[in-house]
């Protein structure tokens, strides 16, 4: 079943230096329960595309639908949780308070808020940190809390914009593993923007390779890796082959210029 569908999507920003084609003729279908990574160099439109899905950016041409609605309707229906590059937790709220934020806004009852906060904290392995303030947590823990915040209201779609970009390799590996487990458990549809080829290959069922000027899709790779993925799958020939294809796609995008 298709959850997100984009047809010949265009987005042109008008700037002082003339128009910038952030997205040009983007066509993509994302099915329910897929884990889709967007990878490409800076300026390829991967974040812009994610923001279009979220209704935070308005396309200037083409069609895009989320759960059969326009992205803006989907946003108003609270169809997705969004994780930003920085954790962006409110320093004046505890971890629990931060996760409660969307629940308060969406009008959940107090009892339900407490129950969901406890549940999502456990999901991201932060049980016991509810009463701590963000400054008392490490960067990796803060990002996990921000994922919990996006999961708290249990939307079917999770959009993540380079959520682990600022973290070190070891923490990132650990979080990738946890994210896969979480995805398997919740069966959400995930859109994931990244810079890292190994991260994209390790996590995804579908890898969308993009290139800049104008921002467009150059390759869509369906992963042949099994759903069960231990970290050492990254040494398997299958993994290396997919990574190779991603790298070729990225290189092709560059030669085009």
């Amino acid at each position, binding site marked *: 079943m298709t959850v997100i569908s984009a047809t010949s999507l265009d987005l042109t920003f008008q700037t002082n230096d003339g128009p910038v084609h952030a997205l040009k003729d983007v066509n993509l279908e994302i099915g329910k329960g897929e884990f889709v990574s967007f990878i490409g160099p800076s300026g390829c439109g991967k974040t812009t595309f994610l923001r279009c899905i979220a*209704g*935070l950016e308005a396309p200037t041409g083409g069609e895009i639908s989320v759960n059969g609605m326009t992205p803006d309707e989907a*946003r108003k229906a609270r169809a997705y949780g*969004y994780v930003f590059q920085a954790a962006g937790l409110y320093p*004046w*709220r*505890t971890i629990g308070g931060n996760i409660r934020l969307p629940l308060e*806004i969406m009008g959940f009852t107090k009892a339900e808020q407490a129950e969901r906060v406890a549940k999502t904290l456990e999901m991201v392995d932060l049980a016991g940190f509810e009463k701590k303030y963000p*400054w008392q947590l490490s960067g990796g823990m803060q990002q996990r809390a921000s994922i919990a915040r996006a999961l708290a209201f249990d939307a079917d779609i999770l959009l993540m914009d380079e959520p682990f970009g600022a973290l070190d390799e070891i923490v990132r590996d650990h979080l990738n593993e946890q994210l896969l487990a979480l995805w398997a458990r919740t069966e959400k549809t995930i859109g994931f923007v990244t810079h890292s080829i190994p991260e994209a290959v390790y996590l995804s069922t579908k890898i969308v390779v993009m290139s800049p000027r104008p921002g467009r899709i150059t390759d869509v790779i369906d992963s042949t890796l099994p759903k069960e993925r231990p970290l050492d799958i990254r040494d398997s020939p299958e993994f290396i082959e997919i990574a190779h294809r991603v790298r070729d796609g990225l290189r092709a995008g560059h030669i085009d210029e």
Partner: protein
Amino acid sequence: MKGSVGPIVVILAALIALWYAAAVPMNVKEVLTQAERDGAVVQPASAAERRDAGRWALVFGNLEHLGATWSSERSRLPAPHQVVMELWDSTWVEETTGRRGIVRSGSFSNRSLVYHGGVTLGATALGFVIGALAGVLLAVGIVYSRVMDMSVMPWAIISQTIPIVALAPMMIVVLYSVGLPGLFAKAVISAYLSFFPVVVGMVKGLRAPDHMQLDLMRTYNASKSDTFWKLRLPASVPYLFASLKIGIAASLVGAIVGELPVQRGGLGARMLGGSYYGQTEQIWAALFVAALMAALLVWFIGWLERRTLNAMGVPS
């Protein structure tokens, strides 16, 4: 705190020494006139010559008379201990032994700085509350309405370019003539001075959340009021307190300036009264009470700030 006492004491001692030193040339003419009247021999002998002579020449020509420069009744610059004595006399002594003091009459004496300080404090507090509220409301309007941003901000800035000492007498006269009680008239001037830093600080504070934080609210489809109460307002708190500290000090200045044109009590009235009657000690004593009050008010806001930020989880 421990290591800072020494430097503070040194600076304070240096300031007091400088003050004593300055009192000598400042008061030398008056002292010599008095000494001549008492029959002493002063150099030069004639008053006309002394009038044209330099202060330092008089100081070095009459070393034996200089002791009186620190105890003169009519000094231009009273010595620190004279100001301290005046402070003591016009607070504790007046209230405990004065005919109109609180001990004998049951209410604060209108000749004591306790009474006048209280008058000024009342106007300061009322003006500050009005000014801070107006400042916050204007800031909210400016942040949420483009029209207000374009129209209010320039006027707010213009309002602060007019010297308050020029404006205050007119405002006071107008406000008194429409029958507003003096407290309110002074509070209006206080508010006029204190709303501005609050507007500026609060506008900056309410705009402090970055794009990401505002986008996050959009992904929740949060209402404007949710975005205000849950994001913009808490984010503005540190900015608010910084501007409240400036605002409360400005309020005190406003109240004192508002008391200058009308002799109806308050530290401003004491200062102007002192200058009318050549009572420099009275001016200085009132100045010190005003400075002490300003320090306490700013400290009070700082205390509120620490309490609030602690409650908001900021490590202290």
